[in-house]
């Protein structure tokens, strides 16, 4: 099929709009609060047969930038992270027993989690606890932060919408609050565990970040555990338990990246809905998990029911003597998304998606210790089927030249644990498109480079609550579509965050 000139232009506009949306979601977290789903999923929109005018999509995107939803006025909307002083209180262990530097788990914490938040000392069941004990924890982070973003589209003359558009660097700063985690987790009975995590944005609008029930050590076998509900994927490097909080550094771009123009709404860092079978050796040095998940990126009540994804993880740790414990893992996520729906009055009927096409993410992760120095390398290869990558319903022919989109992403994160109460962190991250959905799209469109560094100081360390004095700087470069006629096809947008926070959990 020969493409018309108009088709080429609209296709390009759609790609620009969608990559811009994805890029802004990653690089400008303020905008991300608008486009992300309930668990901060980067959402580029589900494939629609054709309902939306593509040029309108692009204009909407441009308007979103002009609508003050930029980093300069960003509110703090970090990925919420997990630690549970409620467990420390239950078992009388210091935070440091389970965390290298909270919320990151150490090998003992990993075993504790793998056992269903049980120490297996015959005191795990609630009946072994004082009646007054309720496993609830609250985490909020008062903070001061500075946000800066280059090449933001604004009116050339402030207040005059007809004055044309200009690009400016916007900076803002001030005191702020994070969202809040309200988390309860523990055991209902011996070997029956639960998690209910309500997370809010900084306006206290809550959603279900995680709710699940887990049957642990089935048949008294640690290799058999079954979890059902909404949960974090068994990522070896957990984004929910990492040590960065700022708008730009507070999430792994690799975990939430969408290829330019792709309709896939999946992020491997997003909590998903489904069932997971997992197992581990007694010391959790060997671990596996296999999950079947609804194809809705963990969004309860969304349209994409009646379709399923699969996630597989395996990791092996080694005792490296004085160096510490070294772990290496591999993973694969194979998903599918419908490309067309039944409609009623033109609107999609939920759960009727069909003409599914596949995408996958696969790679490896590591957690290596050299004494007090910890390295966390991560690699991801992503691929979206051509229909998904070009947002084409599979009952329609592909546009000329449309092909799979693929990319490589990864990061190297480093922690230096000076002692159990001070940790220094840094992370360098990059995403490179290896194949765009259309040959005439700029090859670098969507690429991301990010760098973060910081420190956390835990002034006290005991088994009732936690406080971290947190400092962090993050810088992100995103290759976005050119926004003004004077620009080329792409433009580099730089965003940065400077954050000082009091991160407390009780």
């Amino acid at each position, binding site marked *: 099929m020969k493409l018309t000139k108009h088709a080429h232009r609209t296709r390009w506009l759609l790609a620009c709009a969608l990559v811009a949306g994805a890029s802004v979601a990653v690089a400008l977290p303020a905008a991300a609060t608008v486009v992300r789903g309930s668990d901060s999923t980067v959402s580029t929109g589900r494939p629609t047969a054709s309902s939306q005018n593509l040029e309108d999509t692009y204009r909407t995107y441009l308007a979103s930038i002009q609508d003050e939803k930029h980093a300069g006025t960003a509110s703090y909307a970090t990925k919420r992270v997990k630690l549970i002083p409620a467990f420390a209180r239950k*078992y*009388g*262990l*210091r935070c*440091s*027993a389970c965390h290298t530097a909270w919320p990151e788990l150490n*090998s*003992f914490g*990993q*075993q*504790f989690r793998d056992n269903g938040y049980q*120490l*297996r*000392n*015959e*005191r795990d069941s609630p009946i072994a606890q004082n009646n007054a004990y309720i496993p609830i924890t609250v985490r909020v982070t008062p903070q001061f932060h500075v946000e800066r973003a280059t090449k933001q589209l604004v009116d050339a003359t402030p207040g005059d919408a007809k004055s044309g558009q200009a690009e400016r660097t916007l900076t803002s700063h001030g005191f702020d609050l994070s969202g809040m985690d309200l988390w309860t987790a523990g055991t209902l009975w011996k070997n029956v565990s639960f998690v209910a995590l309500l997370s809010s944005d900084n306006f206290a609008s809550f959603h279900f970040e995680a709710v699940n029930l887990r049957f642990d*050590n089935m048949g*008294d*076998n*640690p*290799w*058999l555990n079954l979890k059902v509900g909404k949960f974090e994927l068994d990522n070896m490097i957990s984004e929910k338990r990492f040590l960065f909080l700022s708008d730009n550094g507070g999430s792994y771009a690799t975990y939430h990246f969408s290829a330019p123009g792709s309709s896939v709404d999946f992020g491997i860092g997003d909590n998903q809905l489904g069932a997971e*079978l997992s*197992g581990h*050796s*007694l*010391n*959790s*040095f*060997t671990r*596996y998990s*296999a999950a079947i998940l609804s194809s809705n990126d963990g969004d309860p009540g969304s349209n994409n029911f009646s379709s399923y994804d*699969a996630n*597989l993880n*395996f990791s092996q740790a080694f*005792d*490296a*003597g*004085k160096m*510490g*414990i070294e772990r290496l893992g591999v993973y*694969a996520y*194979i998903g*599918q998304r419908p490309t067309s729906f039944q409609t009623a009055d033109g609107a999609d009927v939920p759960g009727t998606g069909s003409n599914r096409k*596949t995408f*996958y993410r*696969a790679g490896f992760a590591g957690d290596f210790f050299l004494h007090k120095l910890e390295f966390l390398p991560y690699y991801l290869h992503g691929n979206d089927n051509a229909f998904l990558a070009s947002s084409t319903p599979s009952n329609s022919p592909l546009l000329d030249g449309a092909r799979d989109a693929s990319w490589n992403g990864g990061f190297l994160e480093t922690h230096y644990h000076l*002692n*159990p109460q001070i940790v220094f962190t840094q992370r360098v991250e990059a995403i490179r498109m290896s194949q765009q959905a259309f040959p005439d799209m700029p090859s670098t469109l969507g690429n991301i480079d990010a760098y973060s560094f910081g420190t956390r100081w835990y002034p006290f*360390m*005991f*088994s009732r609550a936690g406080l971290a004095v947190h400092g962090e700087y993050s810088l992100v470069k995103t290759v976005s579509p050119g926004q003004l006629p004077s620009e080329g096809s792409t433009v580099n947008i730089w965003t940065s965050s400077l954050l000082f926070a009091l991160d407390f959990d009780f």
Partner: protein
Amino acid sequence: MSRVAREIASIAVLSALVALAAADARAQSIHGLPTEGRGSDTKVNTRVGRPSVGKQEYTRYCAGCHGDRGDGMGENTQWIDPKPRDFTQAVFKCRSTPSGTLPTDQDIINTMRRGIVYSNMPQWRPLPDQMQADLLSYIKTFSPRWKTEKAGTPVAIPAETPVTTESILAGRAMFQKFECWKCHGTEGRGDGPSASGLTDSKDQPIHPYDFTTGTRFKCGTTNADLYRIFMTGMDGTPMASFADNIKGDQGWDLVHYLRTLQPVRTPEATLWKTWLATHAGELKPIGPETGGR
């Protein structure tokens, strides 16, 4: 699903099945007993500890209960029952050495890995061997005994005798004769007439072990672990050593009887249940003024 996806899924499923099969093979070694602790004592830690490194790890993992000074007075101690070990006394429950002597390094490492059931002492099995050795070397700085005394010689454990009805009956008679029931109760429930008044060496209340709910022992899981407890006692607790009273195979008789009290499927329990079905009336109740069978 694409071909690549199917292949990845197949490999993963096969890997899981192999792992599960391996786990199941291990699980069959001690039928009916929980997996915790199995084999935990078989791995010998030969690494040389570094007290200076161990100090930081002790602060991270241990001090909350055992205290910064190792005196068992951490911030959690007030809430913990039983109380944490006081390392300044260098008195340890779980040993392979005779009562009153210091344990071997491996004994303490084993306790770290195994944890202690019905207490707040978790299983520190995931900690690297070197870290365990570092922790051990630091723990030994709390008491001067480690400088002036050597660890005792581990008690010898003879080969286990066959599990027979006669052995179980003999063990039951010993349970009566040595008045184990006074603390552990006539049915092994930890509710004997002396149970409520027991205290440890620091005058803290202490509870006898309840065999009818416990699937693991304080100091291990195997029959040999149980035999060892008779011979070494649990220093710092009212559980004395019976090394002077129990000779050779007698210890196995007691082991076999105690195994019948546990809520798990053991060869002893199976045999005992079969015998009881036809001979229960021949048994005299355990307790005061009776002689067992």
